[in-house]
């Protein structure tokens, strides 16, 4: 690995001061992207700061209406959290589908978001949940939607001197159900060929609201607004999920890459979209009957 200077941060204030003075410093936490990308030359840096000891950034807090996730929360902590499984199951399922248990022990949600891969498994759930991210610097805090945080493949909205500090998700109201699916070339250690997340809110047999997000089929994960519009207001029995799923085609721009072809992605993403909508509806009805 090319040499670089490394500083260890022990608290948040020290970290924010340091990156104000050294805005080009690379933040290192789990290092599960950092090490491979530095070794391959995809990322380059002369200076890095290890933030794993900044306890202020490591939390997973639940209240009745929302979940606050500190940037250093590991994928393992998300994957094994019973509370998360109850309140935001698609995020728990997505975290549990990533990489493998050894990597999940080290990898952090903040790192995953900041790497901003179009195929990130956590992003479609966060987009469907309309998550908000908090970015802080020595000067204060900015909050933006997760959709505005991911700009392009590998590019996030952080400005020099800022760090991603936490992610906030509202717990969807009663009558909601959600679904998540990942299609990969194997059941572990697989970057998604396509991933999908959905949320529906039912009221009196009608779809009050519907959200659908797809990953690995566009430069960033995308919300499929036409599908969502189609579902909204329909009676459950009227909503044709195949039609809803078909409406993703305008929004996705799949490519050929080492894992799959554009054609296969176009075909399989529509199937995954339909299945996560089915999952969401089924789970919403189960909750209502419970």
């Amino acid at each position: 690995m090319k040499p670089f200077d490394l500083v260890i941060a022990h608290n948040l204030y020290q970290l924010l001061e340091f990156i104000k003075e050294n805005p080009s410093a690379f933040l290192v936490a789990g290092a599960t992207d950092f090490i491979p990308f530095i070794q391959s030359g995809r990322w380059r840096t002369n200076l890095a700061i290890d933030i794993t000891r900044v306890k202020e950034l490591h939390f997973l807090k639940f209240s009745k209406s929302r979940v606050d996730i500190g940037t250093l929360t590991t994928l393992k902590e998300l994957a094994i959290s019973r509370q998360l499984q109850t309140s935001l199951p698609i995020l728990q399922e997505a975290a549990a589908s990533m990489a493998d248990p050894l990597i999940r022990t080290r990898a952090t949600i903040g790192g995953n978001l900041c790497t901003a891969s179009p195929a990130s498994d956590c992003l479609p759930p966060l987009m469907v949940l309309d998550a908000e991210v908090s970015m802080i610097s020595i000067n204060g805090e900015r909050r933006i939607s997760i959709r505005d945080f991911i700009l392009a493949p590998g590019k996030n909205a952080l400005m020099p001197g800022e760090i991603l500090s936490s992610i906030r998700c509202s717990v969807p109201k009663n009558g909601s159900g959600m679904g998540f699916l990942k299609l990969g070339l194997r059941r572990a250690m697989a970057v998604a060929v396509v991933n999908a997340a959905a949320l529906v809110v039912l009221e009196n047999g009608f779809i009050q609201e519907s959200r659908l997000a797809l990953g690995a089929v566009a430069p960033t994960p995308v919300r499929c607004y036409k599908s969502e519009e189609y579902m909204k207001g329909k009676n459950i029995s009227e909503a044709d999920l195949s039609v809803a799923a078909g409406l993703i085609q305008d929004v996705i721009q799949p490519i050929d890459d080492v894992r799959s072809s554009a054609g296969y992605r176009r075909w399989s993403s529509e199937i995954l979209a339909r299945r996560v909508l089915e999952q969401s509806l089924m789970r919403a009805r189960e909750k209502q009957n419970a």
Partner: protein
Amino acid sequence: MHEHTIRLLINGIEYNPTLTSNITLLEYLRDELHFTGTKDGCKEGECGACTVVMNGEAVKSCLILAVQADGASIETVEGLAGTDGGLHPLQEAFMKLGAVQCGFCTPGMLITAKALLSHNASPNYEEIKTALSGNLCRCTGYVKIINAVAYAASIMDSTR
């Protein structure tokens, strides 16, 4: 900033190396300490041959900067056998059930299994498969490895 002096407990023994920041824990274990039981299969966290236990959890040592492990307690495959030379039940099980062919994945498998059993004394097959999903084997087809972990669990459980 380029070099750090750190403290590590490895298989119960303390080390205080001064290292540059661009060395992984795997490189330190193999190249500096000559603990070559832990293997370098890919250098990018894809194969699991480099697995060690760090602070009680199985991790891929090629994905940890050695300096990040400051203060940690590390267990490698060299530490599995007892000080009297007696083999760990997992090692006995792997041998008995034919779970070793070329042996390259074996240290990683043993260590991941050890960490699993320390948290879950009687895992079912799905739990064993999930726990080992970060460790690749090109020889055995995994069946005998999973059986060996289950067998070791039953031995270890019955001696409790």
